[in-house]
Every structure is written in C-alpha cells, then in structure tokens.
C-alpha cells in the first residue's frame, strides 16, 4: 500500500477502520468536513512540515477551489469528480502565481507575502460576479458519482468523500516518500547545502507550493459539495489561521498529524459553535500553548513517547 509499513501501516489500518465505522456513530456531515479539511491540512503539511515554509494564505486556494468547484457543479452541471478536479486546478494555478512571487523572499517575508496576496484573492472573490458576493453560491447540487450514483443522501456522499480522502492521503504519502520528498526535507534542514549539492531549490519549493495549493483547492471543492455552500468565509484570513492551526496542533512533519489536527479543529468549530466569538479566543489560546509547550503536536508527541515514526 504505497510503501506503508510498520507502525504507519498499523495506524493507517486503524484510520481506515475508524472511517468505516464513523458514519454509524457520529454525524456523517461532521466527519465529511473533517476529511475535506484533512486533505487541505495534509497539503499544508507538505509545505510547513517538509520544506519549512509557512504560508499564511492557504485560504485563498481553499476558498477559490470551493468557489470554482461550486460553480462547475451548479452553473455548468458537471459531475462531482470534474468539480473537484476544477477546484484542484484552480487552487494549483493560483498557487503557481502566489508561490512564484513568495519564494523570492525567505522566512518571515515569505509568510507576509502569502498573507498579502491571499487578501488580494479575497478582494477578487468579493468583487467577481460569479461568487455572488455576500450570498455565496448555494445550494450546490452534489450530482452523481461516475454519472450513476446519486450523492444527495449524506450516507452515499460519505463514501464518495472517504474514497477521495484515502486516495489523497496515499498520494501525499507517496509524494513525501519519493526522491522529490527527500529533497524537500534536505531543503528544510539546510537550504545552502541543498543548493551546493546542485538542486534547483527554487523549482522544488515552487512545485511543493503548487502541490500544496492544489490539495487546498481539492479540499475546498470537496467541502463545498459536502456543505452545499461556498462563501466568502472560505477565502478569509481566519480560514488560513485554522489551516495553520490544524497542522501545528496535529504535529507538523508527521504523516498522520494533519488528519488528527483537522479532526480536532473541525470538532471545535462544530461543537463549540454556540460559544460564538469565544471560539476564536480558545483557538488563539491553543496556538499560544502549542508554540510554548507543545511544538511537536498531538501525533508528534505520541510518536515521541512511543518511539514510533507516525
């Protein structure tokens, strides 16, 4: 299974079992949202955990993917697969532009540039007619998977999302453990040494950025199909913050961390929604605690305690 072995294989099988059992125990829409965001977080982790680049603008790719996917499904009547592909492509395309500009600077500047460019994308979405401004695109038809299986029931949609998530997870695992992924890690450890070994660091960073943005676009389109609505909150800076938090809390640079982080953050958003703006206080507090005392994240901490590679 894409080279999964040892503790990771066991963890992956547990994850599969949980995905199969979950819709019989908890509200399926919640799990579907968690899986959509997990795809986004996995892609984000490729950038932060493996190359050491912090993007504060991933909401741009997520939100745009949601809008484009929603537009394809609603106005063009495409199937859900095409809608997700279109979302992925739009995320990756904007990621190419943003990445090209942002990798011209390092470290903190990189983060600030992504934030500023994401703000520009937000203004574009606010003004562009196809997003329907404050109303957003809704209701989005989920269509039929492979042209046959109707997805309007949550239970059918659940398996569609589960397949998409598992495929995305395995693809990302493959990327991380490919020679390309090894070079990314080398860049994280020492950029100068990677350059002196003859690697075109800029191209590697850019490709990682585009892949990461593509995953964000895919997750955005998937989430839009699940919730049947795409709005401005998808391109908001607060969304970027949530994506960062998922990876930080789950454990950056771990394979399963982003999945766990996405689950926790979506659970907070869902079950603490009645607390209103206290949610952002709690979320900010978790940020602070993570940085001060818990930099390995949940999965990183477990892996370190059990001396396993997760």
């Amino acid at each position: 299974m894409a080279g999964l072995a040892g503790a990771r294989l066991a963890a992956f099988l547990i994850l599969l079992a949980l995905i199969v059992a979950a819709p019989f125990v908890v509200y399926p829409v919640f799990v579907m949202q968690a899986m959509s965001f997990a795809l986004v977080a996995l892609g984000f982790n490729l950038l932060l955990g493996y190359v050491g680049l912090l993007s504060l603008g991933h909401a741009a790719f997520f939100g745009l993917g949601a809008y484009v996917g929603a537009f394809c499904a609603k106005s063009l009547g495409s199937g859900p697969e095409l809608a997700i592909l279109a979302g992925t492509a739009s995320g990756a395309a904007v990621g190419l532009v943003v990445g090209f500009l942002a990798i011209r600077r390092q470290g903190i500047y990189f983060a600030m540039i992504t934030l500023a460019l994401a703000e520009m994308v937000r203004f574009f979405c606010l003004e562009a007619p196809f997003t329907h401004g404050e109303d957003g695109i809704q209701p989005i038809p989920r269509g039929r998977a492979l042209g046959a299986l109707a997805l309007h029931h949550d239970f059918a949609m659940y398996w569609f999302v589960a397949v998409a998530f598992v495929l995305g997870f395995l693809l990302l695992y493959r990327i991380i453990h490919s020679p390309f992924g090894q070079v990314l890690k080398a860049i994280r450890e020492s950029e100068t040494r990677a350059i002196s070994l003859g690697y075109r660091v800029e191209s590697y960073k850019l490709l990682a950025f585009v892949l990461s943005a593509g995953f964000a676009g895919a997750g955005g389109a998937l989430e839009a199909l699940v919730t049947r609505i795409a709005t401005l909150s998808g391109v908001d800076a607060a969304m970027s913050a949530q994506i960062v938090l998922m990876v930080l809390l789950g454990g950056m640079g771990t394979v399963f961390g982003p999945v766990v982080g996405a689950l926790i953050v979506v659970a907070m958003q869902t079950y603490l929604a009645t607390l209103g703006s206290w949610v952002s206080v709690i979320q900010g507090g978790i940020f602070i605690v993570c940085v001060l005392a818990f930099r390995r994240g949940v999965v990183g901490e477990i892996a370190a305690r059990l001396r396993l590679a997760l």
Partner: protein
Amino acid sequence: MMMIFGKPAPLLFGQLLLGIVNGSFYAMLSLGLAVIFGILNIINFAHGALFMVGAFSAYLLLHWFGIGYWPALVLGPLAVGLFGAAIERVLLRPIRGLDPLYGLLLTFGLAEVLEGVFTNRFGSSGVTYSVPRLLRGTRDLGFMYLPNYHAFVVVAAIVVCLATWLVIEKTRLGAVLRAATENPAIVQALGIDVPRLVTLTFAGGVALAALAGVLAAPMYSVNPGMGSSYISIVFAVVVIGGMGSIGGAVFTGFLLGVVEGFTKVFYPPGAATVAFVVMVLVLLLRPAGLFGRSR
C-alpha cells in the same frame, strides 16, 4: 472649479489628504514592526490587534475614569506598552532562539485572543469616540477643506516617527539598541542587560502601535476588527520597504497611503488592492525590497 488631470481639485486633494492620513498610520505601525523585528527577530503579528487595543484604551479611559483625549494620548500607550512588556516576559522570552516562525505563530494566536475578547465585550460593530473639542471643525484652504483633526494626525505621526528615529540614531540608548541588534552576545558581555533591553524595545514598539490606535480612535469606528484590516497592508508596506531601515519603513508607509489616495480618485475599485499590486511589482523588479538588504 479647478480641474487637475480631468478631476475636480477638491476631490483630488481630499483623497490625497486621506491617503496621507492613512499613510501616517501605516508609517507608525510599520515603524513599530521594524523596531521589534530588529532586536527580537520576530514579526509581531499581534501588532494590528494591539493598535486596536490602543484605540479601545482611549475609549475605556474616558468611560471608566473620565479621562479625556489629551491625557489618553500618553496614558493609553503607556498602559498598552506595559501589557506588551508582560507579553514579552511571559510569552516571547521562552521561545527566544527558536525558529522565528514560532514567534509569528504565537503572536498570531495572541491577535486572535485579543480580538475575540474585545468582540465578546463590545460586539463586532464597536463603539464611537468623539474628536477632542480643540480639534473640531475644518479649515478652508481655498482649494480644499482641511479637517483640523486630520491635520493633527499627520503632524503627530511625523513628530512621532522623527522622535523615534532620533532616539534610535542619536541617543546612547539607541546606540546600545543598535549594537544589541548587531550582536547581542557582545553587548551582554559589555555589561548591558540585554534581556531587559529586549523587553523595553518590545514595549516601545507596542506603545507605538497603541499611540497610533489612540490617534485613530476619533477618526474611525473603534471596533475589534480595525487592526486586522490594517495588518495585511502594513505587511505589504514592510515587504516593499524592507525592515532594514527605519526611514525606509516610514517613507514606504506614507508613499503607499498617497498611492492609495490617488487610486481612489482615478480607479476607485482598485484602492483596496493597490498596495498589494505595488508589492507584487516590487517583488518582480527588486526582490529585496526598495531599501532592504535581502534576508
């Protein structure tokens, strides 16, 4: 009516003035960011939130203690600066020496906490704070009307930026500060309490943000989100100007304000994004920034 470039002069000068006023806030905020970055090597993401806290400090001083605008101009930044010192001691000191991205993430969380707390207490629409009596009214300059308070804000911002520059470039404290920016270990070995200097600098930078907040309070609605709408533009300013020089940060701040003002006259829908467009152009043409050494 006098026309310039096919636009009525009062409109042009009015927007230019608003641009300079906005530029004053960009300059003060990016100045504080640059000062903090110089010695702590972190970007204070909570800078916008602390600007907001500064604006609220003026409101709270008035409503809790009946203290008016003029004393608030000193007391507000002082109180928020003390708060900043506490933040540095409790939250930032433990992560000194780590990758600067952690500082960014931590202050990012801090901004969320501050905004959340103020939203809970005051609601997202915020409160109003009136212009001090002495500065009400407008002046007829012949070619345009100049609100007294706007003029005051611009003059105050220029004075504050000049004073900060003088302190850093011309005083002994500033010399020590610059030395500690270059090489903290040697400065420490020379018997200077560098950790205290770091706390002081962070508090100073935060106080600058709070002072900008107090100045902004009578002009804009005082609301919990007022800082985050500034921070992305201030980041663009910092990317354009680079944080290597104080003069560069201040100049770029005013420049972007003016560019925004002109855009509002000639292409209104572009005004919100023109700062980012300028940033993109600078990144393409001069990747290190206008005044920056590449980092």
